[in-house]
């Protein structure tokens, strides 16, 4: 027996939620599927593999004012940013929930990032299990899976006429009243097979391959745009600038990427990482060496967005395979 909600029941629950929450769900925008705040459940896309951009943008927005400083009556006042209202994200995949759990590690570590914590505390995550695997994804090799309920507040699994509901914690319980659910004898569909990548031992192998010419050869192809970082559910670098306007200063942060040619440029114009090879290696070294060594988990969820979207097919699955095959040493 499983807890069950009919499709109709789900829609009316979501409609009700939208009255006092900001309801964010996958919706169709000019040929893309994106998470957007929606006004009507009619706009929700249910039949999708995954969204083009990750839900990261609701926790670490592309641009956000961190705080402001205002001069008033001869005094300088610091105005902290306050995130208003409650948000529900509906329809995120288990890999993207794992992405948030990964972002939590650097962002909630004491002292936690004030804005990120607020977004996180004020958002409830209602996930959707994957019933089929995308050709580009490899989540089971990165510590999650198509039906992984961890990191979500509620997970729904589509079955005939509705969804099997698993309420996973108090936050989930508070959002979805039990009286909307019925007990039903319905079998949970099997999780789809996800093609694995040989991720075991990759951190050591990556260290050994650090000076390998592999990276420069691979970087021949890279155009050093920021697509991979910006669509990634776990990349979290940002740049900071002050916007001044008549005695008021807004300190703004915006997404930035290690792949961007000016990323490591410092005062005086010196760039410690000027070459394409080390620049490209940085992305994979962060994901597969530095982050796991510091936080104990890969900085990748296997969502496959970068594989799918890279304009020149820099494919992390292929890189992991290639690195595993390299013999150690400089010219291996």
């Amino acid at each position, binding site marked *: 027996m499983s807890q069950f909600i009919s499709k109709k029941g789900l829609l009316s629950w979501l409609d009700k939620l939208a009255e006092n929450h900001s309801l964010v769900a996958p919706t169709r925008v000019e040929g893309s599927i994106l998470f957007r705040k929606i006004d009507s459940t009619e706009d929700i896309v249910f039949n999708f593999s995954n969204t083009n951009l990750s839900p990261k943008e609701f926790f670490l927005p592309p*641009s956000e004012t961190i705080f402001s400083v205002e001069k008033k009556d001869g005094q300088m006042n610091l105005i902290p940013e306050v995130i208003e209202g409650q948000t529900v994200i509906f329809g995120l995949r288990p890999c993207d929930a794992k992405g948030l759990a990964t972002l939590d590690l650097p962002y909630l570590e004491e002292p936690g990032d004030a804005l990120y914590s607020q977004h996180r505390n004020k958002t409830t995550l209602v996930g959707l299990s994957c019933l089929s695997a995308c050709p*580009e994804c490899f989540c089971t090799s990165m510590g999650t899976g198509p039906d992984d309920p961890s990191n979500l507040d509620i997970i729904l699994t589509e079955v005939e006429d509705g969804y099997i509901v698993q309420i996973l914690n108090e936050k989930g319980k508070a959002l979805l009243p039990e009286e909307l659910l019925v007990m039903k004898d319905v079998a949970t569909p099997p999780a789809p097979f996800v093609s694995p990548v040989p991720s075991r031992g990759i951190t050591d192998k990556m260290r050994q391959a650090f000076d390998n010419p592999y990276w420069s050869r691979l970087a021949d192809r890279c155009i050093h*745009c920021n697509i991979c970082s*910006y669509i990634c559910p776990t990349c979290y670098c940002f740049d900071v600038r002050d916007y001044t306007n008549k005695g008021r200063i807004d300190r*703004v942060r915006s997404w930035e990427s290690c792949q961007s040619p000016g990323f490591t440029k410092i005062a005086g114009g010196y760039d410690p990482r000027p070459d394409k090879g080390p620049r490209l290696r940085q992305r994979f070294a962060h994901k597969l060496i530095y982050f796991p060594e510091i936080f104990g988990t890969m900085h990748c969820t296997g969502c496959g967005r970068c594989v799918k979207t890279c304009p*020149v097919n820099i494919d992390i*699955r292929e890189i992991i395979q290639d690195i595993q095959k390299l013999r150690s040493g400089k010219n291996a």
Partner: protein
Amino acid sequence: MNPSEEIAKKAKELLQSKAVECFIGYQRATDGMTARPLFAHAPEEADRLIFDQTCTHNLVKYLLNHKGKATGIAVKPCDSRAINLLLIEHQIERKNVFIIGVVCPGMVETSWNKTSEKVKDICKLCQQHTPVIYDFLVGEPGPEPQAEAYPDVAKLEALSPAERREFWEKHFSRCIRCYACRQVCPGCYCGECFVERLDPLWVGIRIAPSENEMWNSMRAFHLSGRCIGCNQCERVCPVNIPLSLLNRKLEKEALELFKFRAGIDAETPAPFATFKKDEKIGIGE
């Protein structure tokens, strides 16, 4: 021989005789159906070269990473115009580049793990099916259509200014400023892009509608009379902004005002890099 074999054979010869240090062409991508760039440094690597209607990339941008080195490259006709652009702007030297030009049947709609038989809309409007510059030609040149056609731009021009504004605002609001359009563009090679200048600060770092609009429109102006129409900006955009439409509008303006199409040859001076005292173009006089 099919185009793939012809290109592979010639590239292998070039690498074997050390006429080039590297040959830039296409190979199959990891989805097994689309294409990706290949950099062959050794003759045996040239065996992986392919050419078919999924080879949508313009590889000419990569020549800027191989300055001063003998490099071979496979180009489609639109890509070949980028070579002329870079020659006339003194970014590359003709003697360093061996060009394999491929007569182009038009590229098909592709995306990750998907190909189709449907020729891209932009390719259906193409006026140039034979490369404009090459050392070795693959394929048989055929007749070209006679008149430039801009049905897509005409549709945009038919909108009222308010509607056009709404159209672009809607699209630019989605921009995430990943700069993939710039990074892939053969015409965007400034050592420091205006968008990254701090002093003067032309555009702030915010990824927000006003800054996005500034970024996209200023980039378009920098390409007016220079865009060679390879459609790479639109191909790579992760949020499907119709960037080619913007560039084609400016291309049409340059054509009407100056009878100029960028990259058709490497001799005709570019309109915005030229001052002619007696020139009358019917505006601002």
